[in-house]
């Protein structure tokens, strides 16, 4: 039988100072999941301008990409997506019985790796927006 312990309700956000790594991982995974599914609908809506005309699509995308705020939001989207991917891999491995004992360390590794990938991607994501 698998081992488990009563770590209290993760939904009781008032006791967030007592949260363990696994509980933070759960919260971050839910939060990034909500952002990604919201973005999926927005993404398809924006891409749908291709149904109007080729020019409408090209103009829409290029206008959006010329805005600094859109580029910054894209960096945020990258952070959210990379964390969800890395923590998702962590969950898949734990489900396969690999790494349950070090699930807190793999959560911290997901955070650090997400930070590193996002910081390294900033120049590419902001290229050309300043001039």
């Amino acid at each position, binding site marked *: 039988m698998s081992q488990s312990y009563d770590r209290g309700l993760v939904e009781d956000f008032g006791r967030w100072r007592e949260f363990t790594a696994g509980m933070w991982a759960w919260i971050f995974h839910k939060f990034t999941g909500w952002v990604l599914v919201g973005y999926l609908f927005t993404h*398809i*809506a924006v891409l*749908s301008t*291709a149904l109007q005309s080729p020019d409408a699509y090209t103009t829409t995308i*290029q206008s959006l990409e010329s805005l600094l705020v859109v580029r910054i939001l894209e960096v945020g989207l990258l952070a959210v997506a990379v964390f969800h991917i890395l923590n*998702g891999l962590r969950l*898949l491995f734990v489900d396969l019985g690999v790494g349950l004992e070090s699930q807190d360390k793999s959560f911290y590794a997901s955070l650090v790796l997400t930070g590193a990938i996002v910081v390294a991607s900033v120049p590419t994501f902001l290229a050309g927006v300043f001039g």
Partner: protein
Amino acid sequence: MAERYSSFKVGGRRWLWQRITAAFLVAVLAFHFFLLHFVNHADEVTFGMSQGRMQELTYFSLMILFLLTATFHGVNGVYNALVNQGLSGTQETAVKAVLGVASIVLIVQGVRTALAWAGGVPI
């Protein structure tokens, strides 16, 4: 033993499909970001470039599968998160119906857009 704690119902297949689509999406989402932000740059997007990619059957079918799996994974994730928060009864049925309709609209709109780029199924 502490009480069972999961976002999924006992004996359901949703848990398994969430994992199967996750494994696929990990690879394809990473590929999607890499191709459209690092190989090609987002500010250089034109209809013609998107059309060029979509007219390749391999890319077209990968993107359709991406749309289907991402929609399932996202909407199933939302549904299970809400059930996990205590959604049940009539509210659960209503949410399930709304999410089902939203998924269909998203998939239809996504496929229509893909077909507009490719000018039909690229066979």
